[in-house]
């Protein structure tokens, strides 16, 4: 099966900012992403779990974008605009995809 080089960007971000991130991605023409729920985690601001949150806007999500390598920079800029001042981590991994015409 034909595979094509791509990048897998994983952004872990606060729930309150999720719609801002996806809007920003959309306006940078990144229309493919998948959002996974996050149950909890830990970082510089200490540990937390979702069941211990009462606030709707609380918790975090993981956003996964598969994207052609040449479009990576646009994506990162769009993401960074939102993530910048906030809690959130971004990682970029080399990957391969099937059916590249979709991306």
């Amino acid at each position, binding site marked *: 099966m034909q595979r094509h080089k791509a990048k897998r960007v994983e952004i872990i971000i606060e729930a309150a900012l999720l719609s*801002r991130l996806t809007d920003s991605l959309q306006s940078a023409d990144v229309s493919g992403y998948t959002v996974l729920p996050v149950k909890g985690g830990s970082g510089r*601001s*200490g*540990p937390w779990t979702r*069941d211990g949150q009462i*606030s*709707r806007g609380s918790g975090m999500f993981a956003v996964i974008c598969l994207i052609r390598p040449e479009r990576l920079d646009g994506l990162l800029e769009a993401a960074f605009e939102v993530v910048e*001042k906030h809690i959130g981590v971004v990682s970029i991994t080399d990957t391969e995809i099937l059916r590249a015409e979709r991306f």
Partner: protein
Amino acid sequence: MADIFSLAAGNLISPIILSFVLGVAAALARSDLTIPEAVAKGMSIYLLFAIGFKGGVGVAAHGVDAKLVGTLVAAGVLSFGLPFIAFGLLGFMTKLTTLDKAAVAAHYGSISIVTFVAATSVLETQGLVAEGYMVAAAAVMEAPAILSALWIVARKGGGASATKGLYREILLNGSIVLLVGSFFIGAITGQDGLNQIAPFIVAPFQGVLCLFLLDMGLVAGRGLRDSRGEVGGGAIAFGLLMPLVGSAFGLMAALAIGLSPGGAALLMTLSASASYIAVPAAMRVALPEAKPSIYLTLSLGVTFPFNLTVGIPLYTAISTTLAGG
């Protein structure tokens, strides 16, 4: 005074309060007791729907009068104004940064709907009837405080990011829409509508509130456990003083409008309570550098338990004395 204490004692050994205490104790003891997020959200939707609906039915029954407009205006003014007082007090009592002070102030201008719900159920057990539109006052008070806080930060040269869409988001947040929406459904369908769904929204209400407060206790307890040390003595004192200050303003407004004792107790409670749902979410977007560990610990870990245990019976006793017949 004797009355207040017996009232407070009676309130303290209600299933509602004890459920909250159980939650706090379980969290402090590091039990793994948790209520799933979806169930907690489901209960909060139930409570908002029930309280809004019953408020609307109340208005349908007693009719709209001049006091209603007065109450809503007063609610808006209180929510706009209290953050300035809170910000000033914080300046005296703590060494927080401007951003943190503004964020905390926003929480105290806004309201805690669960505190409101707990107060209505205390009133009920005492046979006090409040104006149905107090629910609408609660909805009005959710958002303005956020604007005041952003305005404070802008004036002080802080970096509030007036991100587009924030105001729309605040006004259309789920809690407000559900509260106002169910209020209108109740007002439109009236007593007939209530009869249809009373076995759902009236009879089991107190029981659901118990489980919900159990969850609140778990969350508040975990918050207290994790934030030990981050919040100083001055801030904690603020968290105990500010509800009294807020309730005093609420009382003055209630007396000026001429609310019933029940209504006055609710307006005092609203003014005394601090948000921990709508405002924190808005702060993460608008003032991301303000520390959640400070504002959440104060509003949820200090002021919420204070109001639940001491505040509500106190406000009720004062209002029945001063606004009472």
